[in-house]
C-alpha cells in the first residue's frame, strides 16, 4: 500500500502528432459549415423519411440495407432532439426550424473525418513509411467525392469508416499475433475486427464484401497457423476458436442485435404493414393488432373468417367474391362457367368474409362448445354476403388457362354439379392433429374432387373482374408454392344463422394475445426475407450510371442547387486522383504478376519480408477495391457513382504504397530517386489544385458564374447545372 505512495504517479504518453494533425484537418474539412445548405440534399430525402419513422417509432421496411445505418442517422436526430415532423418529399425543400440539420449530419461527417487518420494508421501497420502513410491520409482528405458524401446525411461515409476500421484492427491484431498472442490488445483488436465487420454489413449489404476480404485474409493466416508445427495442437485449437468467436459468432450476434433494436424501436404500425404477414402486423401497435385483439384463436366450424394470401405478390390481398359472374365468353373466345367470380382483393371489404361450414351439417353458427377445425378435415367455404359455396371444376381459369376456374357456385341446372368440398391442409403444422389457428396457421385448400389447390395466380383480371387478382385451382402436383397458402386474418365465431345479422356480430369468447406468440427470430427472419426479396421498381434515374463509367469518372450527380443562385453541390471526384489511383492499381497488378512469375523461376527481386508486406498490402488494398467494385457488374439494380466510393477508398490506400515501392525498388540511382520525388510532389500539388478548383461544387457555398461553371465541365458527361439568366 505504502509502496504505491512512495512513487510519484507518472503518466507517459506517446502522442503521434501526425495523427492529431490529420484528425484536426479531417474534422475541419468535414465539419466546416456543416449545416449549410439548410435544405434537403439528394438522397437525404430518402434516408430522412426513415429517420422520421424512427422518431415516431413507426414500422417501415427498406430493402436497401440492414437497419444499423438508418439507426445511426436516427441517433443523430435523437441527440439533436428531432421530433420527426418533417415532410421529406422533394430534394431542395428548405428544412424547418425543428430539424437539427447539424446533428443529423454530424455522425456521417465524423465518420468521414476519422477515416483520414485511420488511413494513416493502416499504411503504417502495413509496414510502410510514415511519409507514405501521410500521403494516403492526405489523398483521402482532399478527395472531393469523399468530402461531399460525408458532409450529408448519407451512409457511404460510415460504411467506409467501418470498412477501414475492420482492416486496421485486423492489421493491428495480426501484428500483435507474432509477439503477444492472447494479450489484452490482441483480444481487443480481434474483437474490434468482428465488430467493425458487423457494423459495415449492418450499414449496407455492400459491407459484406469487406467482411469477406477480412475473413479470407484471416483464413489464410489461420491456415499458416495450422501449419506451424512449433505450436501444440491445443494452442492451435485455441487460436482457431478465438478467431471463430470474434470473426463469425460476434458479427452474426451483432447483426441480430441490430434487428432486435430495430424491431424493438419500431413498434407502431405504419405504411409498410401490408407487405408483412398477418402475424407480423398483429405484433405492431395499432394496425392489425387493434382489429385482431381478442379474437378467438382456433377456427371452428361456423367461424367467420377473412383469408389472406401468404405470398401476397404482386399485391397483398384477401380471398373475395361478389355478385358479378364470369363473362360467358372471354375476349379470346373461350367460354366460362358463368358462375360468380372469386378473386383476390387488395382492400378490406365486407365481401372478404367467408364462413367455414361443416359439410355434414346445415348450420352456419358455432356450436357450443366450438368444434375446432383440424388438419385434414373437409370443409365448405360459404361466402358471407351471397351465401354461395366456394367451388372449382374442370373449366379453364379466365387468364391462366392451364389451371382450373374457381367460382362461387351458381346452379344453372346444366349438368355442372357443385364440387365444393375442400380438404384443409395446414402447411406449418406440428402434428397431424393440429387445429386451424387464426393468423398463425398457413393453410392450403385442396379440392376433394380434382385435388386442385386454391392459388393466387398473380394476374390481374380485365375490366369485367374490376382489375382484381385472379384466383385459380392449380394441380398440387406442380409443386408447393407460397401463393397456395392462406391464413385467417380476421376471425369471429358466427352465432347467427340469419345472413342479415351476420355482419353485426361481435364476439370475444377467448382472449388471446397473438403478438406474444411471434418470437423475435420469427419476426427477424420474416423481415430479413422480405427485405431481400422485395423487388423495387428498377427505376431509371437521370444520374444513374454503369460501373464502367465510374473508373473513368464519366459520370457525376447533381446533389443540390441553390434556389436562386447557381451555387450547387455536385458529386464529382478529383479526376487527377481517380486516374492515378486506377493507374496505380494496374501497376500493382502488373508488378505483382511480374514478381510472381520471376519467383516461380527462382529469381527473387525482393527480399522475402518486403515481398510478404507487398503481398499483404496488395491483397488488402487491391482486394478491397476489386471486391467492392467488380460485383456491381453482376447487379441488376440502379447504380450510382457513390456506389464506387468504398472501392475508391481502398484504391487511395494503394496509391502511395505503389509510389513508395517504385521509389524504393525500381529507382536505382540517386538521380532517379530525386527525380521521382520531385514528380510525386508536382503530381500532388496538381491534385490539390484540382481539388481546390472543384471545391465550390463540393461545398456548394459559393456561386460561380456560368462561364466558370462551363470551365469546370471537364467532361461532356458531367451534368453541371447552369442557371439560365
Amino acid at each position, binding site marked *: 500500500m505504502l509502496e504505491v505512495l512512495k512513487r510519484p504517479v507518472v503518466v507517459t504518453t506517446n502522442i503521434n502528432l501526425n495523427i492529431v494533425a490529420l484528425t484536426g484537418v479531417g474534422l475541419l474539412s468535414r465539419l466546416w459549415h456543416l449545416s449549410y445548405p439548410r435544405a434537403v440534399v439528394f438522397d437525404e430525402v430518402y434516408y430522412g423519411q426513415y429517420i422520421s419513422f424512427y422518431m415516431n417509432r413507426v414500422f417501415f421496411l427498406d430493402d436497401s440495407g440492414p437497419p444499423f445505418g438508418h439507426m445511426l442517422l436516427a441517433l443523430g436526430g435523437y441527440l439533436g432532439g428531432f421530433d420527426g415532423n418533417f415532410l421529406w418529399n422533394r430534394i431542395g425543400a428548405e428544412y424547418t426550424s425543428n430539424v437539427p440539420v447539424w446533428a443529423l449530419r454530424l455522425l456521417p461527417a465524423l465518420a468521414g473525418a476519422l477515416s483520414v487518420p485511420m488511413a494513416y494508421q493502416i499504411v503504417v501497420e502495413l509496414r510502410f513509411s510514415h511519409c507514405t502513410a501521410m500521403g494516403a491520409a492526405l489523398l483521402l482528405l482532399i478527395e472531393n467525392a469523399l468530402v461531399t458524401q460525408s458532409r450529408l446525411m448519407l451512409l457511404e461515409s460510415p460504411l467506409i469508416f467501418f470498412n477501414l476500421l475492420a482492416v486496421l484492427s485486423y492489421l493491428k491484431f495480426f501484428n500483435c499475433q507474432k509477439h503477444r498472442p492472447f494479450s489484452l490488445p490482441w483480444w481487443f483488436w480481434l474483437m474490434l475486427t468482428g465488430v467493425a465487420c458487423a457494423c459495415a454489413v449492418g450499414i449496407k449489404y455492400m459491407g459484406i464484401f469487406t467482411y469477406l476480404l477480412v475473413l479470407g485474409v484471416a483464413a489464410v493466416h489461420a491456415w499458416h497457423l495450422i501449419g506451424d508445427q512449433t505450436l501444440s495442437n491445443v494452442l492451435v485449437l485455441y487460436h482457431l476458436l478465438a478467431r471463430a468467436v470474434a470473426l463469425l459468432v460476434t458479427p452474426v450476434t451483432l447483426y441480430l442485435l441490430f434487428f432486435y433494436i430495430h424491431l424493438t424501436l419500431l413498434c407502431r404500425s405504419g405504411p409498410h404493414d401490408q407487405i408483412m404477414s398477418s402475424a407480423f402486423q398483429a405484433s405492431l401497435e395499432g394496425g392489425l393488432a387493434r382489429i385482431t385483439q381478442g379474437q378467438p384463436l382456433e377456427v371452428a366450424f361456423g367461424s367467420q373468417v377473412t383469408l389472406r394470401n401468404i405470398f401476397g405478390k404482386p399485391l397483398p390481398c384477401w380471398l373475395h367474391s361478389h355478385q358479378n359472374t364470369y363473362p360467358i365468353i372471354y375476349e379470346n373466345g373461350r367460354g366460362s362457367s358463368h358462375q360468380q367470380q372469386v378473386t383476390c382483393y387488395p382492400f378490406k371489404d365486407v365481401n372478404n368474409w367467408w364462413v367455414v361450414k361443416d359439410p355434414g351439417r346445415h348450420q352456419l353458427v358455432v356450436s357450443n362448445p366450438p368444434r375446432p377445425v383440424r388438419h385434414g378435415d373437409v370443409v365448405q367455404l360459404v361466402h358471407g354476403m351471397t351465401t354461395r359455396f366456394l367451388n372449382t371444376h374442370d373449366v379453364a381459369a379466365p387468364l391462366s388457362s392451364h389451371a382450373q376456374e374457381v367460382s362461387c357456385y351458381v346452379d344453372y341446372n346444366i349438368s355442372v354439379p357443385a364440387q365444393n368440398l375442400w380438404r384443409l391442409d395446414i402447411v406449418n403444422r406440428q402434428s397431424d392433429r393440429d387445429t386451424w389457428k387464426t393468423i398463425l396457421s398457413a393453410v392450403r385448400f385442396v379440392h376433394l374432387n380434382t385435388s386442385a389447390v386454391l392459388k393466387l395466380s398473380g394476374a*390481374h383480371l380485365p375490366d369485367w373482374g374490376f382489375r382484381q387478382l385472379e384466383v385459380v385451382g392449380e394441380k398440387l402436383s406442380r*409443386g408447393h408454392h407460397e401463393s397456395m397458402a392462406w391464413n385467417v386474418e380476421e376471425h369471429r365465431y358466427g352465432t347467427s344463422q340469419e345472413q342479415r345479422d351476420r355482419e353485426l356480430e361481435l364476439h370475444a369468447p377467448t382472449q388471446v394475445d397473438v403478438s406474444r406468440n411471434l418470437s423475435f427470430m420469427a419476426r427477424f427472419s420474416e423481415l430479413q426475407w422480405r427485405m431481400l426479396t422485395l423487388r423495387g421498381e428498377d*427505376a*431509371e434515374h437521370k444520374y444513374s450510371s454503369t460501373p464502367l463509367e465510374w473508373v473513368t469518372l464519366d459520370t457525376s450527380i447533381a446533389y443540390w442547387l441553390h434556389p436562386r443562385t447557381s451555387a450547387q453541390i455536385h458529386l464529382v471526384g478529383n479526376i487527377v486522383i481517380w486516374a492515378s489511383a486506377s493507374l496505380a492499381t494496374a501497376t500493382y497488378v502488373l508488378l505483382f504478376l511480374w514478381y510472381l512469375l520471376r519467383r*516461380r523461376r527462382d529469381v527473387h527481386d525482393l527480399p522475402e519480408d518486403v515481398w510478404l508486406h507487398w503481398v499483404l498490402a496488395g491483397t488488402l488494398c487491391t482486394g478491397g477495391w476489386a471486391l467492392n467494385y467488380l460485383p456491381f457488374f453482376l447487379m441488376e439494380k440502379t447504380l450510382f457513382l457513390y456506389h464506387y466510393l468504398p472501392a475508391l477508398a481502398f484504391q487511395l490506400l494503394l496509391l502511395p504504397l505503389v509510389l513508395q515501392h517504385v521509389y524504393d525498388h525500381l529507382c536505382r540511382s540517386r538521380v532517379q530517386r530525386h527525380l521521382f520525388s520531385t514528380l510525386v510532389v508536382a503530381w500532388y500539388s496538381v491534385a490539390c489544385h484540382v481539388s481546390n478548383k472543384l471545391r465550390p461544387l463540393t461545398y456548394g457555398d459559393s456561386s460561380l458564374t456560368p462561364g466558370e461553371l462551363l470551365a469546370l465541365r471537364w467532361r461532356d458527361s458531367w451534368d453541371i447545372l447552369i442557371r439560365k439568366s
Partner: protein
Amino acid sequence: MLCASGRLLAARTATSLPAPPRGRGPALRCPRRELHFPGNPDPPSWDCLAGRLTRASASPHRRVILRRGRMPPAVGRGLAGSELRLRRSRCGPRAAGRDVAIQAAARSPKRPAPGSWRFEVAGRRAMLALVTLLSFATRFHRLDQPRHICWDETHFGKMGSYYINRTFFFDVHPPLGKVSSVMLIGLAGYLSGYDGTFLFQKPGDKYEHHSYMGMRGFCAFLGSWLVPFAFLIVLDLSNSLPAALLTAALLTFDTGCLTLSQYILLDPILMFFIMAAMLSMVKYRSCANRPFSAPWWSWLSLTGISLACALGVKFVGLFIILQVGLNTIADLWHLFGDLSLSLVTVGKHLMARVLCLIILPLVLYMAIFAVHIMVLNKSGPGDGFFSSAFQARLSGNNLHNASIPEHLAYGSVITVKNLRMAIGYLHSHRHLYPEGIGARQQQVTTYLHKDYNNLWIIKKHNTNSADPLDPSFPVEFVRHGDIIRLEHKETSRNLHSHYHEAPLTRKHYQVTGYGTNGTGDSNDFWRIEVVNRKFGNRIKVLRSRIRLIHLVTGCVLGSSGKVLPKWGWEQLEVTCTPYLKQTLNSIWNVEDHINPKLPNISLDVLQPSFPEILLESHMVMIRGNNGLKPKDNDFTSKPWHWPINYQGLRFSGANDTDFRVYLLGNPVVWWLNLVSIALYLLLGSIIVVAMQRGAQLPTKVEGLTRVLLQGGGQVLLGWMLHYFPFFLMGRILYFHHYFPAMLFSSMLTGILWDTLLRLCAWGPASSSLARAVHAVGILSLLLGAAYSFYLFHPLAYGMVGPLAQDPRSPMAGLRWLESWEF
C-alpha cells in the same frame, strides 16, 4: 542415367524390404524430374532389367490375379507393370507416372506378380466392354416407346425440321446440337424416310408413319457412351478398377440418365461432349510424362474439339471449358516452376495449349456457326429478332436483294425498327391502354413479327397532304431535323406522346396513337434526327440511324424492352424517355419503304460480315436466354431441389390411362451421391488439416489420400462448376440442368467409396481380411444400385396403370417423397 539407376534403387528396396523408405529421398524425386524431359530416351539397359524383373517374379502370382479377377489393389499394382507401361509409351495413369517408387513401396506384402499387368489390362478391357455393352443395352431397350412426342422433343424435333427445310429460326442455344441431329436426320432420312414434314406441334402427338427412331437412336447412341467414358475417367484418376466399376454401375442404373438419353433432346449430346472433353483432358494429363508425343497431341486436340462441340450444343458447355482452363493454368504454372525446363520449352507448352485449347475450338465453333448460317438461308419465323442487315441475307425476306426507294420522302409507307436487338418494329393496334394506365388512347408497342400493323405513313407536321399517289404533289424528301408526323396506316392515328407516365417505366412518358383520320394535335409532332449527321441531309432507308424527338416534351422515342402484361399482348413497351442519353433503345432505322412515286433502286444493304453475324446472333441468344424469366406466382424448380431429387419432370402422360415416363434420378444412387459429397468434404478436410499439421501418414495411406485429393478433387471441381453457377442464374431452370453435375458427382462417389473402403480395411486387419472387406463393400454397393434400378426402372421405360398414390399400383411403395408424381 542417374535417374534410371535411382529408380532401380527404389525398385530394389521395394522388392527386398517390406517396410520401404519414406518418400523424401532422391530416388523418389528423380523419376518425376526425368519425366519432364521431352524425348529423353529410356536407357536400353533399364528396359532389359525391367523385363527381367518382370519375368523373374511372374509365375507364382499370376494365378492369384487370375483367381481374384477384377479387383487388384489400386495402389499396389505391380511395379514392373507401371514401369513397362511407361516404356511402351502408353499414357499410364498419372499416379503411376509420378511417384512410381512410392507406389512400389506402398504395395502390400502380398502384391500381385509384376507380370500380371497384362492380365490386369485384359481384365480392364473386358470390364470396359461389359460396361459399354450394358450401357447400350439399357439405353436402346424400348427406345421406340412411347410412339408420340415427349416433352421438349417438340422443340428440338421442330428445329430439326427447320434445318431440313432450311428455314431460318431463332433459338436460345447455339446450333451444334441441332446441326448434328440434322446430320443424323439426313442419314435417317435416306434410310427411313423422315422428310421434315412432321410438325412437332405439342407433346403427345403421335408420330404415326414419320420416322423418329433415327433421331432417338442417335441421342441414345451418344448417351450410351457416357457410362464407358465415366468408367475410363475414374479408372485414370483413381487407377482402381472397383472405383471405375462402381461409377459405371451408378450411371448405368440411374433412371434419370437413362430417361434423358432416350429422347430427341440436346442433353445427351451435351453430356457426351462434356464427358469426352473431361476424358481427353484426363488422358492428356496422364501423358504429361511424354509431352509432344503423338498421343499427347491427339488427346490435347481432342480436348479442344470436345470443348468446342460442348459449347456449340448449349452454353452450359462453358463450365467444362472453365474446368479445362483451370487445369491448364495449374499445369502451366507447374511446368513454369520446374527449373529443369528451359523457358523455350515452357513457351512450347504454352503455345501447344493455346493452339489446341483456344484456337482450334474457336475455329471449330465458328465453322459450326458458318454451317448453321449457310444452311438456314430462307426466311422464317425468326426474322424479326434480327437487324435489317441480317435479314437481307435470307432468301424470301423482303430485304433479300431489296429493291426499294433509297431516300425517305413524305407520303412514304415505312416500317421502323429499333436498333437494339430483339426489340422489333414500332407497332400499334386498335386496342386502347386500359383504364388507369395513362391516357385511354390507342396502344403503341414494339412487335417482333412482321405485320400490317407495323406500317406507318410519314407526313409533314402542318399539312395533312392526303394521297401520296396523287401526282400533283411533287416528291419532297424528308431531311434531318424536319418536323414530321407518323400516321399509323391501319388505324389512321398519329404517333403521340404526352406528360403521362408510361405503363411500366414510370419515369418515362406514355406513347399512344391519337387523333382521327390523321388529325391530331401538337403532341403528334416529332423531330427526326439522324445520328451523327448535319442538318439538311436526306434520310436513307436502312442505313440511317434515326432518333425521333418529341417536340413538346423534348423526350426521345424509345423502347424499354419490357414486356407488357396481357392487355398489351405481351408486346414490348414503347416510351418517350426524357433522359437524352444515347442508347440503342432509342435509335431506330427505317426498314420497309413503299413509295410509288420514287424509283425502286436495288439496294445493296450493308451485308454484314461473318464476325458481325456471329456477334449479332450471340447477342440475340443471350437476350433470349435472359428473357426466360419465371413469373412470381409460378412454381419453379430451384437448384437446391436437384441433388436431393426433390421433384422430377413429367416427360409424357399424366393420367392413369396414359403411357407415363417420368424423369427422376434413381433415388438410391442420388442420395448415395449426396452422402458421398458430404463425406468427401469431411474426409478431405481432415486429411488436408492433418497434412498441414505435418502428420506423418503411413505410405499406403499417403497413396490413397493422393488419389482422394487429386482425382476426387478434379471431379469435385467438375461437380461444383456444373452446379453452383445455376444459383446465380435468373432464367427459368429445370431439373434436367443438373445432369452434367450428376455425372461428376457419381464419379466422385466411385472414387470416394473405393478409397474409403480401402482405408477402413487398411487399419487393423490382415491383408486378406482387408481385401474381403473391400470386396464385400463394393459388391454390396453394386448390387444395391442394380436392385434399386430394378425397382425404379418403370420410371424410365414407361408405365401404364394406376398412379403411385393408389395402393393398387405396382409403384405404390416407391413414392418415397410426396413431391414425386408418377
